[in-house]
C-alpha cells in the first residue's frame, strides 16, 4: 500500500517537475513529496479511525484504571497508558494534579508523563512503515522502559518534596462527565474534528522535520556521518543527545529526520538517542512542568533522561552491530 506514495513521488519529481533522477535536488524533492503525502495521510486516517471507535483513552479514564493499583503494576500500566493516551501538552498540569489527587504515587504519574511524548499510535504506525517494524519494536520497548525506570527511581528518592506545595492542597471536584453523541453521524463528526485538530497541532513540526530530512537526504554526503559520527566514535551518542536537548519536535515530525539519518548509515542507537532527546526533553514542556515541579526535580528529570538516552544509544549500538 505504501508503494503508492513512492509512485506518486516518482511521478511528481521526474514527470511533473522534470528533475533528473540521481541529482541532489531530485533526491531531496522526492523524499519531501513521498514523506509529506505518506505522513499526513497516515496521521489523518489513524486519528480518524481511533476517534471514530472512541478507542482514544481519555485521561480521566486512565486515572480510574491506575488508581489503587500496586506500585509495581502501576509503573508499567501508567507507562503503557501514556503511550496510547493522546493529550495536548497544555493539559499536562491538570493531568498531573488530577493523578496525584487520586492518590496515584508521584513516580507512577511521572511514568505516564515520561512515556506520553515518546510514543503514540500514530508514531508507531508511521515509524513502522518508514523505518521498519524491528526498529519500531525497539523504540516501543525503550519508551515504556524509560517511563517505568524513571518512575521507580523518582519514588525511591522520595521526590514528593520537590512538587510545588500548592499542588497537594488542591481538592478536585467530581470528575465532569460530558455526554457524547453515539450516533454514526455524531461519531463521524467527532472523529473528523479530532483528526483536523491533530493535523493543525502538528503540521508545522512535520513539515520542518521532513524539510530537514529531505535536506540531509539530498545534500549531506553519505560519508559525512560515517566519518564524524560512526559507531567507533564514542562521543557521537552523547553529542546526539546534547544536540537534541534544546530542539523540540512532535514525535511524528522527528521520524523523517531519523529516516534520513539512518539512510546515511548513522548507527541505530545514535539515531534513537537523538530522537528521544528531541521529543522527550524540551524547553516548552519544562516551562509547563515548572508550574508543578520545583527546579531541583526538573533538573533531576532532565539529567536522568539525558543519561538514560546516552546509555540506550550505547546499548543499542553494541547490540545491533
Amino acid at each position, binding site marked *: 500500500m505504501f508503494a503508492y506514495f513512492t509512485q506518486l513521488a516518482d511521478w511528481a519529481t521526474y514527470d511533473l517537475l522534470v528533475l533528473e533522477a540521481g541529482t541532489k535536488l531530485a533526491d531531496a524533492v522526492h523524499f519531501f513529496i513521498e514523506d509529506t503525502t505518506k505522513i499526513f495521510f497516515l496521521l489523518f486516517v489513524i486519528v480518524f479511525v481511533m476517534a471514530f471507535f472512541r478507542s482514544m483513552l*481519555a*485521561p*480521566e479514564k486512565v*486515572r480510574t484504571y491506575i488508581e489503587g493499583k500496586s506500585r509495581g503494576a502501576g509503573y508499567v500500566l501508567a507507562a503503557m497508558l501514556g503511550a496510547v493516551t493522546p*493529550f*495536548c501538552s*497544555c*493539559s499536562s*498540569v*491538570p*493531568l498531573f*494534579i*488530577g493523578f496525584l*489527587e487520586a492518590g496515584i504515587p508521584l513516580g507512577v504519574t511521572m511514568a505516564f508523563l515520561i512515556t506520553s511524548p515518546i510514543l503514540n499510535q500514530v508514531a508507531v504506525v508511521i515509524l513502522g512503515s518508514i523505518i521498519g517494524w524491528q526498529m519500531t519494536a525497539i523504540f516501543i520497548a525503550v519508551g515504556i522502559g524509560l517511563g517505568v525506570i524513571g518512575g521507580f527511581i523518582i519514588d525511591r528518592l522520595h521526590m514528593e518534596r520537590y512538587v510545588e506545595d*500548592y499542588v497537594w*492542597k*488542591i*481538592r*478536585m*471536584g*467530581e*470528575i*465532569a462527565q*460530558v455526554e457524547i453523541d453515539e450516533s454514526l453521524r455524531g461519531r463521524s*463528526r467527532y472523529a473528523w*474534528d*479530532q483528526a483536523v*485538530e491533530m493535523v493543525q497541532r502538528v503540521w508545522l513540526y512535520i513539515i520542518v522535520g521532513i524539510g530537514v530530512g529531505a535536506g540531509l537526504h539530498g545534500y549531506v554526503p553519505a560519508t559525512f556521518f560515517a566519518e564524524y559520527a560512526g559507531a567507533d566514535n564514542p562521543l557521537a551518542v552523547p553529542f546526539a543527545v546534547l544536540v537534541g536537548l534544546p530542539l523540540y519536535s512532535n514525535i511524528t515530525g522527528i521520524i523523517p529526520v531519523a529516516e534520513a539519518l539512518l539512510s546515511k548509515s548513522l548507527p541505530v542507537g545514535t539515531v534513537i538517542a537523538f530522537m528521544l532527546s528531541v521529543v522527550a526533553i524540551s524547553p516548552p514542556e519544562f516551562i*509547563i512542568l515548572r*508550574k508543578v515541579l520545583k527546579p531541583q526535580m526538573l533538573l533531576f528529570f532532565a539529567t536522568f533522561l539525558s543519561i538514560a538516552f546516552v546509555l540506550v544509544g550505547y546499548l543499542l549500538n553494541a547490540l545491533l552491530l
Partner: protein
Amino acid sequence: MKTFKVLGSGCKNCVTTAKLIEDKATALGVAVAVEKVTDMATIMGFGIMSTPGVVMDGKVVHAGGIPQPDKVEAWLRG
C-alpha cells in the same frame, strides 16, 4: 444573561474556545459574560482534567478540546 467560564492554562485552544462562544453569542443576539479561568485550583475544583473546559451558569458542559460550533449554539439557545 448566561455566564460562561472557559477553564484552561491559557493555551491557544482556550482562547479559541472563548472567542467561539463570544462570536456565536453576538451572532444569535444572546447576552453573555465570558470569563477565562487559569487558576489551577479552580479548574480542578470543577473536576476538569482535560482542558479547555467550559462551565455554563456554574455547571460543566464540556471538557477536553474546542467544542463543536453547534454545541455552543445549543448552549446559547437552551
